[in-house]
């Protein structure tokens, strides 16, 4: 057994150990590692931006996998009005810096939704 194969096996095994097989979909695995406060703050976005930010309609920005700095910059510039918006301005202004940071870290850790065509 060469090193690469060992590595691949270890990764595969690691996956088995980390993720209960009873879980049918990968969405369930992604929340476990997150802090409860981050999950709490991020759930508020789901109604428009999709479960865990993996929205399929592209009128709303998918948040899953967005780099933290980009998320924070977007929310702050919506909040102070420097980035024009319809709804995001008032909404972003309602969240605290800590909540915005927690959301940013949550979404950065979620895999991007893979469009059917991109799989």
């Amino acid at each position, binding site marked *: 057994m060469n090193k690469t194969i060992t590595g691949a096996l270890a990764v595969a095994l690691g996956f088995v150990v980390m993720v209960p097989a009873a879980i049918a979909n990968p969405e369930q695995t992604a929340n476990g590692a997150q802090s409860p406060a981050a999950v709490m703050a991020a759930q508020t976005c789901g*109604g428009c931006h999709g479960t865990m930010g993996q929205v399929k*309609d592209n009128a709303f920005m998918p948040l899953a996998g967005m780099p933290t700095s980009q998320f924070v910059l977007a929310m702050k510039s919506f909040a102070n009005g420097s980035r024009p918006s319809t709804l995001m301005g*008032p909404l972003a202004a309602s969240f605290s810096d800590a909540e915005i940071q927690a959301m940013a870290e949550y979404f950065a850790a979620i895999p991007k939704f893979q469009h059917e065509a991109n799989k």
Partner: protein
Amino acid sequence: MSTMNRRNFLKFTTAAAAATPFLAGKSAFAADEKHIVVIGGGVGGATFAKYMRLYAPEVKVTVIERKKEYQRPYGSSEIIVGNVDMNDITISYDALQKKHGVNFVFDTVTGVDFDKREVSTENGTKITYDRLVVAPGISFDYSGIAGMDTEAAQQAIVHGWDAGDQLLTLQKQLEAVPVDGTVVVVPPPNPYRCPPGPYERAGLITQWLINRGDKNAKVIILDPKNGFTTDVTMLQAWNRLYGFNLPKAFEKNYKPEQVATFTKHETPGKIQWVMAEEGGRVVKVDVAAKTVEAEAGVFKADMINIIPPLKAGKIALDLGLADKSGWCPVDQKTFESTLHPLVHVIGDACIAGEMPKSGYSANSQAKVVALQIKALLAGQPTIEPVLQNTCYALAGQSDYGMFVADVFRLKDGKLKRADQPRYLPFNASTAQYRLSAVYLHAWMDSFTQDIFS
């Protein structure tokens, strides 16, 4: 049902060790498997079931629901004017069952034994729970409107406020309105489901009559209230689109320079809003004569749509989960009933401080409760909640949208909205209204995905 592998078993034993007190309860299932039972598969119940499984895959979730398919009430007024059809608002529970492993029992709940933690159904099934989530939606209270207290009256003048075939009845009634006819819409008093909804519906009907070619048709809103959510943007839109004149008594809600931007239309507009202060409260309905008697006088109509006062869904009332107000008091951090422990009430039926009764509120509450129940089952402290609501609405014209958006936090035990602007600004650009309409329709899809897929 999920099969348990070794890893899962290990995880359970750890979780169980941390949550020993909860093992005392009886369960029909494996002793170490926590079981959450949900009554009602609407926005709140379905979101809860999906997210409970997402946040805590080791927990078993069973939804008891009467209907095999869901008809979404959000956006359903567009059925009446033919923008969408019943298929568009009908949603399957397949993904919740197959993808998320939620157990569904299609049956009617007949009772709950709170001591035994046991739900009974019409078909004689008994289901035990570790915690119960009740998401029963709304019921209708016609007792305050004379002339509407019979079954026959309620079939002739329908509300169409809970999706279902009543929407098709309203569609037929609208089509039967003679050219240049009159439609009366009666919104309910606070609190009620979907705050901008009755006004959006009135706007949609107005636009439908205009599209048909009616020059002198009228839509009259007889309101028991002096304002409503999105009123400042909605009334501005109607002034622009439908010759609507601002009621004198409402002017105080705008700055003088804003009032000055309203056009004063010489003839009465195609849509009129009779607010409570100007006699909008309805006291009596004559179904046969098609007249509505309000404090301001008697209105003759070709079509009448009355959304009566609302209460919590019937099952919540039957189970003794509501107080004298007709709604269910809860601890606003966990949404656990203050009347029955281990029972959580979410969505329209619960009293959630300043949160409106809306689909988005129910969705956000459901996720919060899933997180709190996960913590409670693990013997961990509950989490400081943050919730959100967004309601989109159309002014009538399908490219003129608006919204209300709020964030809610717990303060002195009550959910309070963050003190920020919540509507489009008064001087919003045309692009902002057009974009809001685009977002409204995109939201119908993304919101449905978040709940059901």
